[in-house]
């Protein structure tokens, strides 16, 4: 199993607020899973906990990437193990160049895995090719990380990082938010190009529309910190037509 989450319970560290109340979810290699759900259901928390953000406490349960316990690892170790989170709100980092950042990240991962680091020329070639397909200009590559980027540019930059880092398991947190139709198509094309038998995807979204472009194999509905319903792509259509109320009423 690529990603296996069992009975995951999570609360906020600083207050006694329980966010995840027993999430069970498995993503197979080569599959795209989608998680949909209303605001506040715990979707983003799940993505942060999996990638190792501070501020959350796992009180019960487990999460493993290809059998390796994720929760014991630092964020950079999770990345080196093959986990990637495309942020809902990519962070702007003034003073750190996009290319420097990406090269340090890639070589950090390669070093951690005992692989040879890429030199500047090899890296540049790799990035240029990928950037072209995502319509990311040289100027964007040269600028500080996400600084002055439009919403669409930030999301394309996330996909660029994903394509360069070649993770095994990609979590995408509301990648469609803030995107117009053209930008969404560009992002979806980037994701589809990475679909591969050796890679799993977990796509978190509010809306069906992203799933028109990135066709999921499995759709989960999350509510109040749990997966309440799992089905095929038709489940997303049902949400689109009827909203969450009916489904939630049905499982309540």
């Amino acid at each position, binding site marked *: 199993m690529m990603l296996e989450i069992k009975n995951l319970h999570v609360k906020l560290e600083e207050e006694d607020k329980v966010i995840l109340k027993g999430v069970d979810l498995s993503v197979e290699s080569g599959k795209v899973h989608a998680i949909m759900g209303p605001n506040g259901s715990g979707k983003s928390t799940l993505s942060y906990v999996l990638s190792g953000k501070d501020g959350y406490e796992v009180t019960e349960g487990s999460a493993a990437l290809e059998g390796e316990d994720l929760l014991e690892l630092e964020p*950079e170790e999770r990345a080196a193990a093959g986990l990637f989170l495309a942020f809902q709100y990519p962070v702007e*980092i003034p003073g*750190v160049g996009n290319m*420097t950042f990406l090269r340090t*990240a*890639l070589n*950090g991962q390669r070093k951690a895995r005992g692989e040879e680091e890429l030199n500047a020329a090899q890296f540049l070639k790799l990035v240029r090719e990928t950037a072209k397909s995502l319509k990311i200009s040289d100027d964007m590559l040269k600028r*500080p990380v996400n600084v002055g980027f439009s919403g669409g540019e930030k999301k394309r930059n996330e996909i660029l990082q994903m394509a360069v*880092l070649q993770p095994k398991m990609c979590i995408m947190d509301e990648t469609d938010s803030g995107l117009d139709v053209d930008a969404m198509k560009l992002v979806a094309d980037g994701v589809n190009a990475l679909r591969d038998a050796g890679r799993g995807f977990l796509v978190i979204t509010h809306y069906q529309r992203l799933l028109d472009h990135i066709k999921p194999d499995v759709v989960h509905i999350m509510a109040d910190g749990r997966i309440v319903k799992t089905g095929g792509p038709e489940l997303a259509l049902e949400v689109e037509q009827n909203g969450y109320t009916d489904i939630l009423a049905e499982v309540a």
Partner: protein
Amino acid sequence: MGLPEVKADGAEALLARHPAPTKGARWAEEMREKAVASLRAMGAPVGRDEYWKYTDPRPLTADTAEAAVLKVDEAPVFGEVDRLKLVFVDGIFDPAQSDDLALSGVEIEHLSDALATDIHWAKDVFGVLEARGQDPVPRPMAALNTAVASVGVAIRVTGKAAKPISLRYLHENPTSDAVIHHVIKVEEGAEVTLLENGPAAARFNKCMEVEVADRATFHHVRAQGRDHERLAATHMFTRLGTESVFKSFTLTVNGVLTRNEAVIEFTGDDAQAHIAGASAGDGAFHHDDTVFITHDAVNCESRQVFKKVLRNGAKGAFQGKILVKAGAQKTDGYQISQGLMLDDDSQFLAKPELEIYADDVACSHGSTVGAVDEDALFYLTSRGVPRVDAQGMLVLAFIDEAIQEIEDAALADEIRERLGAWLERHRAV
């Protein structure tokens, strides 16, 4: 109103601790006498003084310098730059390590020679800019410097200097107490870059007066020595003519006490002055930037950018003032001072001041203190950047706004490398 005894006695003690300077021409001796009188009138600095409340002056005013031993073995900064090199060891000029005092576009003399000459351009600069900078804020260590200094250089730039002039201050005697004074005049339309580096002495009192004439350009990049236990009080007094450009950057890493004062006065219209500082301190480190910029001309731009990275109880202080006199319309003044704390033990004290008597000006200032941005740190580490490297990247990014004030890209890169190396040595574990 009499001077408090402690200040009066302190001034006498300061004067007594230094030998009499090499005798100069009458004008120079008069200027020194004025400086003595001025120091006696203002007294030695004490902790109760408004501009010394963040920095304890006692190590600077004590009778003897605490021993400071150079422990860092590192290639000297600017070593690869093609430059005219002048070396001072514990405050004494060292001809053996120095280049000849000859450079196209520049006249260079020893300060003592300039001050001994009856008719000399230095008469309009030596002690003159320092004295102008004593009001309204007294700067006793600078008055002391003018009163007792014999060592230093007098530089007159008449054209475009063929290469940078580099002043290198070496420290060998563990208890040296050095006083150095430079006078610089950049004549109309002339251009020069001045580099300074090195720890200089166990205790270093440096004063530099810089007259930048109309349409002249003065670039200054300084890397204060990495000698951990050294003390330094430095002053830079600058007067700027019409359409002149002045840019000064200082890097300070280590040093138990460093006080850098800069006094800049715009007297000609359409001039530009940028002063920036980056400092990084770990442990027993106290760093103080005190800046006073007077706008007394129209349409001038001043910019102050100071960044300090502190850990393990290091302390940073910033006192920056912009004074816009009546009539100094179209003034554009900017000031930012920021402290980045790598732990909870360090301290950053800032006092930004604006005093404005003209009505058509744009002045802004900001001061912040904070920790490394956790969101940025998470973003970087989530991509596989090891945490210590991510923190290093964010620290360098924080400081970079100050480094960007260095005009020359190669010099800026060298400063970045030095800071990177410092971070490497002082990594949090």
